[in-house]
């Protein structure tokens, strides 16, 4: 007997109209009960026995394409798929119910297409990526006006946010009112809440992996929208037809232009702008080049008092190379810069800080056989942290020039990950990541007595800063401290029946850079600090189990998780973090734990689509004293993190009423977020001072709102290539005054103490005009 010959079927799948490569297309061979999915660059490869095979290419929103392939030698079959016209306006949630998804061991993940995000009604009528993902189970934020997002009880700095493989350090504009992502420029986004594959690392809680569109290779096009507060315009088109394309998109708010109309003489401004750019070129069938860039800025100016600018810049060059039809590779060279600048005009100085990094990544995918896929590669990042630079802005400013010492680090990782079909019913993904973090030398480093930067004063029961006994200088190419961590990542899926499976996963992740922030949610003032002698890397362990079932038009996902994180930084009570040269004097190492149960019920077909998500969870932190005598923080007791929400319920639905009208609604209900309330008051220097309870021991009122939207598709029969729509939306229909915060203070008029609730968003109607050409 001789073994059956096998050959490889591979290729790249694109959209017929634009030539845009397609992610997540299912390539199925029903007769063999096997299949594969296209990767982030639209590439697929599968090794099958010699012979004739019927292959079906499917993707929701597109016409399925069936082809009979004669596989007598390696076949390259790159095809295009056509959009289904009647489903054009329908919302889809990508991770569909197809068999390949029930089988795949990847759990705790959701993929969203840009169209889905655009249909969800949001504040001020602007489609928003971060608002959309907070509707998923396990994802929340620290309140209205809070930037960033929290995944499975994790902190906002524990999310790895990637845009075309480049790391972004700040994902929000204007305190979280908008995200930095322009939905028109996005092709696809995937959020991993757990079961994080070995190719990702550096952050504990999640990975938000976003890919931009490449640009239409076939014809010029424009997409845009004009809204009450912001507008956007995206231009794309071929550079060389079918081979190269460009994409350039911009977005900006202009609300500040209305302020002088309402309040003449008021020169305050608050605005942001983003610029997304991309150039793509297919050199030949084996080689593609991409050059992407992102530039975003937020600016606030308060008259003659204060000016603030911050934002991300990323630039990356990627080279896709096919070594052969079973070995795909991508090499990325990335530059990323996060800048923060503050000018206090009345105090006559400017403060600048930021983080800059250079990143080299090389990722390989080897489609070994139809049962085994191997991914391996390495990732190297060089960081420069500028904790702050102070410049006097006028000649007679009282401020001195001051530069806080730059910090440098090198983060390297290598990984290998295998997707293995063990049997018909059992699939496993097993990976190992080895990561190393080296804190490099810098011009001046503090040396402390007994290497202890923070002293416990037993007499007063407080932590105090230690005075350094010396400062030394270490060469940039020498190491102050180095860490090495092994990060196993394992997940498995066992198919129970045709439409259901159970999955389980375990992952260990290491995080070497930390956002220094003692506010409940990140503010642009917060600084990233690298691990080193005193600040240890965070180490997280997450276990998750889940049950997945597909029905006629529905799917159900139930997952439960448990996470523990060691070395989570916590701040002593009066920690002053701004421009702090020696953070180690005000922080202690603590730990966090989070656990929860998530339900996601989705309807993915028909005129009514949407999902219902419910999460029951707990997220808490504690920092015990380092010895038996020390009190630790909050007396070493567990306390709720600022984003702990016991119940988190989201319902989002979209209904296609007719060819022209499309309705949408969201209902969100969450337990109020934790807060620290007073237990009493006293007077000091004639002012009322509250006496506080244990950290986050109380809660604000429940948070809930209902939003609705109606989209009017103005179909112009005469203009085939032009489509436009008007979106009417109302946020918070019943005008609930949700508490963004509660302050306790003395009313200067009545002399009584009172609790004052600040709410930010009442009922807000909006109109947006969107067009596509």
């Amino acid at each position, binding site marked *: 007997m001789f073994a059956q010959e096998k050959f490889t079927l591979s290729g790249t799948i694109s959209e017929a109209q634009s030539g845009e490569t397609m992610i997540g297309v299912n390539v199925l061979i029903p007769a063999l009960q096997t299949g594969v999915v296209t990767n982030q660059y639209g590439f697929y490869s599968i090794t099958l026995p010699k012979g004739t095979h019927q292959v079906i290419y499917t993707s929701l929103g597109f016409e399925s394409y069936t082809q009979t392939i004669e596989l007598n030698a390696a076949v390259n079959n790159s095809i295009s798929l056509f959009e289904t016209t009647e489903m054009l306006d329908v919302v889809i949630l990508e991770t569909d119910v197809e068999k390949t998804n029930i089988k795949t061991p990847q759990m705790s993940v959701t993929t969203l297409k840009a169209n889905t995000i655009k249909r969800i009604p949001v504040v001020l009528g602007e489609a928003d990526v971060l608002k959309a993902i907070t509707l998923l189970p396990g994802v929340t934020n620290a309140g209205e006006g809070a930037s960033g997002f929290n995944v499975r009880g994790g902190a906002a700095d524990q999310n790895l946010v990637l845009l075309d493989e480049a790391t972004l350090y700040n994902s929000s504009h204007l305190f979280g009112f908008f995200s930095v992502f322009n939905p028109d420029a996005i092709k696809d986004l995937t959020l991993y809440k757990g079961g994080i594959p070995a190719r990702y690392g550096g952050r504990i809680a999640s990975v938000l992996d976003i890919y931009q569109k490449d640009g239409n290779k076939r014809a010029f096009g424009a997409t845009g929208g004009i809204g009450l507060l912001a507008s956007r315009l995206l231009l794309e088109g071929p550079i060389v037809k079918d081979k190269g394309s460009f994409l350039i998109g911009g977005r900006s708010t202009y609300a500040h232009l209305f302020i002088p109309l309402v309040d003449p003489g008021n020169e305050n401004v608050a605005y942001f702008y983003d610029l997304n750019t991309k150039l793509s070129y297919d050199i030949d069938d084996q080689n593609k080049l991409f050059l992407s860039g992102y530039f975003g800025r937020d600016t606030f100016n308060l008259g*003659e008092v204060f000016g603030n600018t911050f934002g991300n810049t990323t630039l990356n060059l990627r080279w896709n190379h096919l070594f052969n039809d079973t070995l795909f590779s991508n090499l990325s060279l990335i530059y990323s810069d996060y800048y923060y600048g503050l000018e206090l005009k009345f105090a006559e100085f400017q403060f600048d800080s930021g983080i800059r990094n250079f990143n080299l990544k090389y990722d390989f995918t080897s489609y070994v056989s139809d049962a085994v896929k191997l991914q391996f590669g390495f990732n190297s990042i060089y960081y420069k942290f500028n904790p702050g630079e102070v410049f006097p802005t006028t000649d007679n400013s009282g401020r001195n020039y001051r530069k806080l010492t730059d910090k440098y680090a090198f983060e390297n990782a290598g990984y290998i990950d295998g997707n293995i079909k063990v049997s018909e019913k059992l699939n496993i993904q097993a990976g190992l990541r080895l990561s190393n973090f080296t804190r490099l030398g810098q011009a001046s480093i503090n040396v402390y007595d007994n290497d202890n930067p923070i002293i416990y004063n037993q007499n007063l029961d407080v932590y105090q800063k230690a005075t350094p006994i010396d400062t030394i200088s270490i060469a940039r190419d020498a190491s102050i401290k180095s860490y090495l961590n092994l990060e196993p990542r394992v997940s498995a899926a066992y198919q129970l029946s045709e439409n259901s499976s159970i999955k389980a996963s375990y992952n260990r992740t290491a995080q070497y850079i930390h956002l220094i922030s003692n506010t409940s949610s990140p503010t642009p003032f917060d600084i990233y600090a690298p691990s080193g002698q005193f600040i240890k890397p965070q180490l997280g362990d997450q276990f998750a189990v889940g049950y997945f079932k597909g029905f006629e038009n529905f799917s159900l996902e139930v997952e439960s998780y448990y996470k523990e994180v060691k070395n989570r930084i916590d701040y002593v*009570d009066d920690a002053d973090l701004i421009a702090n040269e020696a953070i180690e004097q005000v922080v202690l190492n603590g730990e966090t734990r989070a656990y929860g149960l998530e339900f996601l019920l989705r309807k993915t077909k028909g005129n009514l689509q949407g999902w219902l998500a419910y999460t029951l969870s707990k997220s808490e932190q504690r920092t015990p004293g380092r010895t038996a005598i020390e009190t630790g923080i909050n007396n070493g007791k567990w306390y709720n993190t600022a984003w702990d929400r016991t119940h988190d319920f989201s319902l989002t639905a979209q209904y296609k009423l007719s060819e022209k009208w499309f309705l949408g609604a969201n209902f969100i209900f969450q337990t109020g977020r934790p807060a620290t309330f007073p237990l009493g*008051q006293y007077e*000091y220097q004639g002012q009322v001072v509250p006496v506080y309870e244990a950290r986050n021991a109380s809660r604000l009122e429940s948070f809930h709102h209902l939003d609705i939207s109606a989209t009017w598709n103005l179909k112009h029969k005469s203009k085939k290539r032009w489509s436009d729509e008007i979106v009417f939306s109302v946020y918070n229909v019943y005008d609930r005054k949700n508490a963004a915060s509660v302050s306790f203070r003395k009313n200067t008029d009545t002399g009584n103490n009172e609790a*004052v609730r*600040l709410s930010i*968003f009442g009922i807000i109607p909006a109109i947006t005009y969107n067009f596509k050409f």
Partner: protein
Amino acid sequence: MKKNILFILVTLLLSSCEEVIEIDLQNSEPRLVIEASVNVLKDGTSDAVVTLSQTAPFFENYIPPVTDALVSITSSTGEVYNFNHTQNGIYTAPFLPVLENTYTLEVIHQDETYTATESLHTVTQFEEVIQDNQGGFGGDQIQLKAYFTDPGGIKNYYLSETLSIRGDERRAFNDEFFDGNRINDFYLADDLAPGDVVTFNLYGVDEYFFNFMIVLLQQTDNGGGGPFETQPATVRGNIVNQTNSDNFPLGYFRISEISTIVYIVE
């Protein structure tokens, strides 16, 4: 300041709204509050006041004074200054501290002894006040700047206080960014008008009091809450309960030199 600015931005940006609400708060056991402040003026006179009170439930209007305690300060050279209760929990004594000594405060109340040790912290001198009629957010408010020169080469910490009928302001700052320079403290009030009397006080303090005041000022300003807020926590001063360390007092024992300048708005 960081918190103020962000708070202002949020309210400016949108039609956010503030509303007084009813909240049921728990009440803690009353705790002793010791505000012991000794100020030495530039002319050599001094003013030593110890105010004792207790914590009260948050929504009450009455702060109970403590009128039956024994208060004294002992110097490192052995002199004892006994404080007499005048009224409403205010205890005074003629007490002029000197630079060379350290002083220990002792308060005995309900059979428990509270102590703290401090020394005199000097301060530089106010030089002049300059009025700028084009200051503030809109560039059209009267802004007062009180100038002083920070001693170079040493770490200085300050508490500044500006008093007027248009509203009092307090700030704590250090010389990290202006060591050795001539710098100003400023005062801005909405309705500052010609003829208003504004008093600037500058207290010399140490790093511990500076840290204490920074947190206290944040808590009195807005009382906490909100995503930009740092975690509020009951801030401890420098006074210890020798008898029962769990029953710690609130407040601070401070000895400062003070520079004062009074200005009449033109």
